[in-house]
């Protein structure tokens, strides 16, 4: 049997990581909720299994999403992951075909050249050696990019690279050493025996001209084995756990498991699947507009894994969702962040045991609700006059009365039976409390407002505020249609209930976060705008839209930083000099209008300006012609 003591570090590392993976997956499976366990079982024996395999190939090996976002960074990840996979695959086949027997232990394939130094001189053997050299070159090219990226991130098209912990640095060094060590060890062995293909062969013969290749090769084989062993043993406590964790994540996601409200196996696997690639950092406006670069998802997730106090990081985020769209691993970042926010005061505690190799739950410390009502001062809901359409302006709309006035005008012009729910100011919808992690308090406000809505007997609820719209859709139990005013106006136009003049204005549209990425309303506002004005592109369309900086999601950010984000966002949105910058969120309107000299208006304002007030009976008696009412908002 071929054996040499230098393979021991590699063997220890390999068997350790395999046993670890089994134990860890048992713990993760045990912690899943019962429905999730069933989902996973169904997924394992169903269509999801095939999809998962396909996704693992495309995302974990080829890294298709990173390639699309950033080709150079994608190539780096692809060459390391896919290249290593090919090297292992073809290495195993090589050892199986050309080795002394079939079904070898893994070290035979990894250190094939050491045990078969005279392999690869003629014919098929040489062609195979050529292929192995090509794969090694492929990996080394990616490694070269990785080393450059660590020191100058701009070369691979990244503005910032993630900062690392000391253990991560050790693991990174061992990862970086693996392939150069293999190259030199193989080259020196090839040099001694005059074998090897274009890469190892030529480097080997050149080195052999002035170096004692035979004696030097052995230490490099040790280095190769040691760096592999170190890497495997450190893998569970460093960010490289993302390599196996992503496989679990893909299987679970395809089986239909979602993050939910509480910390559990799935949110933990998501945290471990983050490769700290840093794409979220480049997407974050708090980074590129305000220069705050310690709160991005990569750092939040690092703090979660390290059991650090996440309250400051978790709260300091605009919750705009730009990172969610771009995460190449598909981590539901906002949902993970919301879990951390809810756990600031209570929730399960975690501890890292076995020097950080396991992260276990300390038991649930959620305090029982004590029946203490915070908002019991809200008035009793009286029986209201029945109506068809209910208009809820929302807090922010009350700060921008032009929006609610315009909506009143549009609703009146439509001739529908409607009523104004919070004409004299109502309670808050509850979303800001939810965003701060106070779900129990938010539920009280939700119950109050729900009661108001039920008693009105309306079949449609229209709101002007995307923040309210999101919470009405997701957290209220309403059996009526909920519309944002852009959707409502679109319906009015489609059903020919309002007629409008065309205003010859060049306008740009800013998609609010909560309406766009938050609730997927992208096209209705644009359709409405095209009815009344000339819509121009901003360069930040739909999923790529910016946050205005006013977001209620962040309660930590200072006014000055908010202003920086607002000014930067406004400058980007108005770079093509539109006459009016249109948005559909009162909060965006308020924030952006303070940050740019361009006129900022809500969509309802331009519609109200363009709308033709229908002939009323009084005017028809006077036989006057229908004329557009002259409103000069702009």
């Amino acid at each position: 049997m071929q054996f040499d003591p230098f393979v021991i570090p590699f063997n220890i590392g390999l068997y350790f990581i395999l046993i670890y993976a089994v134990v860890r997956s048992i713990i993760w499976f045990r912690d899943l909720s019962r429905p999730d366990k069933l989902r996973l079982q169904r997924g394992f024996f169903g269509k999801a299994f095939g999809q998962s395999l396909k996704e693992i190939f495309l995302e974990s090996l080829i890294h298709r999403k990173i390639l699309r976002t950033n080709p150079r960074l994608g190539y780096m990840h692809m060459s390391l992951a896919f290249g290593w996979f090919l090297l292992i695959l073809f290495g195993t086949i090589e050892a199986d075909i050309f080795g002394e027997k079939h079904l070898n232990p893994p070290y035979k394939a990894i250190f094939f050249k050491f045990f078969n130094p005279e392999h690869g001189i003629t014919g098929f053997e040489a062609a195979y050696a050529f292929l192995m050299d090509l794969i090694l070159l492929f990996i080394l090219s990616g490694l070269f990019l990785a080393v450059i990226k660590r020191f100058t991130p701009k070369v691979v098209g990244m503005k910032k690279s993630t900062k690392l912990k000391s253990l991560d640095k050790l693991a990174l060094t061992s990862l970086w050493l693996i392939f150069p060590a293999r190259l030199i060890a193989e080259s020196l062995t090839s040099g001694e025996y005059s074998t090897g293909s274009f890469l190892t062969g030529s480097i080997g013969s050149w080195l052999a001209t002035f170096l004692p290749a035979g004696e030097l090769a052995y230490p490099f084989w040790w280095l190769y084995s040691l760096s592999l062993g170190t890497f495997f043993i450190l893998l569970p406590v460093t960010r490289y756990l993302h390599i196996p964790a992503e496989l679990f994540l893909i299987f679970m996601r395809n089986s239909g498991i979602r993050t939910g409200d509480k910390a559990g196996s799935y949110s933990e696997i998501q945290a471990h699947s983050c490769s700290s690639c840093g794409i979220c950092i480049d997407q974050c406006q708090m980074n590129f507009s305000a220069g705050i670069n310690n709160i991005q998802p990569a750092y939040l997730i690092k703090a979660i894994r390290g059991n650090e106090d996440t309250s400051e990081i978790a709260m300091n985020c605009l919750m705009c969702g730009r990172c969610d769209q771009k995460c190449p691993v598909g981590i539901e970042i906002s949902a993970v962040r919301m879990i951390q926010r809810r756990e600031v005061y209570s929730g399960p505690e975690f501890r890292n045991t076995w020097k950080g190799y396991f992260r276990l739950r300390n038991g649930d410390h959620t305090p029982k609700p004590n029946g203490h009502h915070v908002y019991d001062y809200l008035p009793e809901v009286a029986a209201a006059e029945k109506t068809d359409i209910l208009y809820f302006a929302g807090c922010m709309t009350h700060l921008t009365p032009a929006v609610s006035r315009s909506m009143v005008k549009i609703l009146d012009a439509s001739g529908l039976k409607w009523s104004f729910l919070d004409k004299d100011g109502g309670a808050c919808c509850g979303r800001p409390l939810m965003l701060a992690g106070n779900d129990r308090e938010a539920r009280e406000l939700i119950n109050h407002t729900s009661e108001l809505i039920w008693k009105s007997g309306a079949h449609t609820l229209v709101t002007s505020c995307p923040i309210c719209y999101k919470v009405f859709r997701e957290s209220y139990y309403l059996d009526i249609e909920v519309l944002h005013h852009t959707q409502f106006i679109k319906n009015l136009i489609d059903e020919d209930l309002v007629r409008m003049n065309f205003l010859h204005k060049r306008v740009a549209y800013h998609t609010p976060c909560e309406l766009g990425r938050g609730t997927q309303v992208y096209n209705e506002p644009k359709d409405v705008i095209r009815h009344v004005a000339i819509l121009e592109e901003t360069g930040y369309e739909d999923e790529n839209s910016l946050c205005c900086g006013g977001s209620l999601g962040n309660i930590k950010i200072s006014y000055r930083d908010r202003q920086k984000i607002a000014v930067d966002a406004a400058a980007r949105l108005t770079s093509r000099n539109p006459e009016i910058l249109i948005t559909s969120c009162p909060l965006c309107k308020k924030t952006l209008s303070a940050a740019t000299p361009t006129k900022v208006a809500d969509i309802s304002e331009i519609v109200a300006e363009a709308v033709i007030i229908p002939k009323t009976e009084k005017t028809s008696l006077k036989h006057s012609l229908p004329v557009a009412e002259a409103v000069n908002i702009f």
Partner: protein
Amino acid sequence: MEKFGFKLSKPRVIDFDRNDKSVAEFIHANEPSFRLCIECGGCSATCTAGNFIPFSLRELHILLKRGETEKVKDNIEKCMLCGKCSLVCPRGVNTRNIIELAKRAFKIPELHAV
């Protein structure tokens, strides 16, 4: 015993030196914009909760700074966190963080054990 309509009134002197300023100090340490407030009352004027009850952030702010935390403790939770106050604030005070920090301060036992 005869009652003559006289009683001993509690002293109504506010002794700033003896008041518990720990909550205000905690807030100030975590949210520097706390001291920017000029007590203009814009926040109270726009307040959603203040529309229903006499809830005033301006008042609570003054009480916090004076160290009279009892009334703040009873009232601070009535805020709905809607954020209108921070939008109208002429000084850019991060009002919502102040409220969240105050709530948190009242949950930390050693801070108000006076």
